């Protein structure tokens, strides 16, 4: 059978990738392009007509101070959460690869928060913050302890705590894979040369685990930056909208305030930020490979 004719190629492509292409185009490509068009209309979500308004949505997106405040908040939240997630995950990974008894049990245990969706986790933690910890605080101080969720800074701190708790187990597994990829002989050789445990981690394990770090840091950046579920169930933006992160702001702008065009324009700004982060990831990843 001829395998280099056009007809053969077309048949093979449709057989192996036809459905994939159709689904992918209909779910990702078409909505993406259609979304660009929506940013230039003032659609209210109900009516059939979508009046063309040019760049008016971008102007109102740039003028929407609530959006920029939520974006700034998202940056601060993400920066702190990413650092803590990775620090905790790395320490956990180190502890559960140190050859301790029951380390598989611990690996499985720390991973549990990842099994459960953000909505349910948020409600569980809401109960913990509002009821359990308040009750614990009152028992210890015999005073009138307020919930962490009641204050503006407290709500963001609560979001960070939950995110660290939620993602650390997943990142831990990636770091575990990293630790296991460091050859034992190298560590042994270092030990013979007089390296202490800490020295061999800093000078041998960490440099050899560059790809794990790149993977974990960017995975946690994108997850934190786009967080929505936990934000919705844990704080729902309270108190007084002071804990709404960027993804929630975009959702509310479109589906609550019915400004679909402006919401889409604001979402597109999020996309540009994500694309820049993705670009940096590819660049850093390539650079790391060359060095290693």
């Amino acid at each position, binding site marked *: 059978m001829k395998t280099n004719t056009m007809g053969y190629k077309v048949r093979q492509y449709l057989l192996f990738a036809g459905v994939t292409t159709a689904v992918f185009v209909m779910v990702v*490509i078409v909505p*993406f392009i259609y979304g660009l068009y929506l940013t230039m209309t003032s659609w209210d979500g109900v009516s059939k007509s979508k009046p063309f308004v040019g760049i008016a949505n971008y102007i109102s997106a740039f003028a929407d101070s609530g959006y920029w405040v939520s974006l700034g908040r998202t940056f601060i939240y993400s920066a702190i959460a990413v650092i803590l997630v990775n620090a905790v995950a790395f320490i956990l990974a180190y502890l559960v690869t140190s050859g301790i008894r029951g380390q598989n049990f611990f690996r499985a245990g720390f991973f549990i928060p990842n*099994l459960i*969706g953000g909505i*349910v986790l948020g409600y569980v933690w809401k109960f913990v913050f509002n009821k359990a910890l308040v009750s614990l605080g009152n028992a210890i101080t015999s005073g009138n302890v307020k919930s962490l969720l009641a204050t503006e800074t407290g709500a963001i701190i609560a979001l960070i705590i939950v995110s660290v708790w939620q993602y650390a187990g997943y990142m831990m597994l990636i770091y*575990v*894979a990293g630790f296991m990829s460091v050859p034992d002989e190298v560590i042994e050789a270092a030990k013979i040369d007089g390296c202490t445990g800490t020295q061999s981690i800093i000078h041998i394990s960490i440099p050899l685990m560059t790809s794990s770090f790149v993977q974990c840091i960017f995975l946690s950046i994108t997850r934190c930056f786009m967080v929505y579920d936990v934000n919705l169930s844990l704080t729902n933006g309270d108190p007084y909208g002071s804990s709404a992160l960027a993804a929630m702001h975009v959702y509310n702008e479109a*589906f609550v305030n019915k400004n*679909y065009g402006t919401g889409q324009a604001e979402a597109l700004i999020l996309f540009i930020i994500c694309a820049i982060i993705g670009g940096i990831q590819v660049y850093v990843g390539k650079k790391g490979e060359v060095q290693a």
Partner: protein
Amino acid sequence: MMENIENAAAARKRKIRNALVFLLLIVLFIAFIFPFIMVVINVFKVKADITANPLALIGSHGFTLENFPAAIKKMNFWNAFGNSVIITTLATIGTILLSALTAFLIVRNDWKVNKLLFVLMIASMVIPFQVLMIPLVSLYGGIFGILNHRLTLVFMHIGFSLSMATFMFHGAIHTNVPVSLEEAATIDGCTKWQTFWKVVFPILKPTIATVTIIDAMAFWNDYLLPSLVLGRKELYTLPIAAKVFYGTYSTDTGLVMASLLLAMLPILVLYMFLQRYIVEGITSGAVK
């Protein structure tokens, strides 16, 4: 002699260190499951006891199971559970089959169209869902009018997960499937289609397991997309049911505890049996 003493001292030091690490891990582990412990001890209490002391193991009104039947009925648990099972299963199977086939085509044929598809898929991975949700609702709701169908959600789940899955199968076929094996199958008279199912697909088992775990968990727990697609009560998945339930009964703490535990239970039970595979699957998926 000296060496023996030194070895004994080193061994003792290591023993102490291991004991300390073990202790530290126990403390961390308890801290990690503390929120779940809170749910479990409060789910067997009546509302008054939870309000009085959420930390007590048993309330003054004693042990009760009454929260469960009420929560099951009010959140329409079995219906939501069924929807979640159907949607997760279909979307996972669809993703695996389509992405494995596509990855095979892309790896083995150096055609321009394949490269274009693959580049588009990789690039699309940086698109946040928030950018697509408004046009999705507008297109599928306003223009096609096919929201409020479980299959529409399955279709979208597959569409969003294809890129990552194809990428993972691409790597697996590239490194783990020897071309010579496929050539042998071709000589024996297999078409490409038969070769894929009889030779390539079985070799991909570890990757299939990893993709299944990652995607099934994502589909099962997803809230935002299902909440936009499924607006009717009888179509709700578990996360939507939990959200709606909380919105209505948030002051009824006993019921809330039961609904949260019910929403978590299926995946926790599954994890008890499959935890080894899940942990190994994620770990091996991490090494590129």
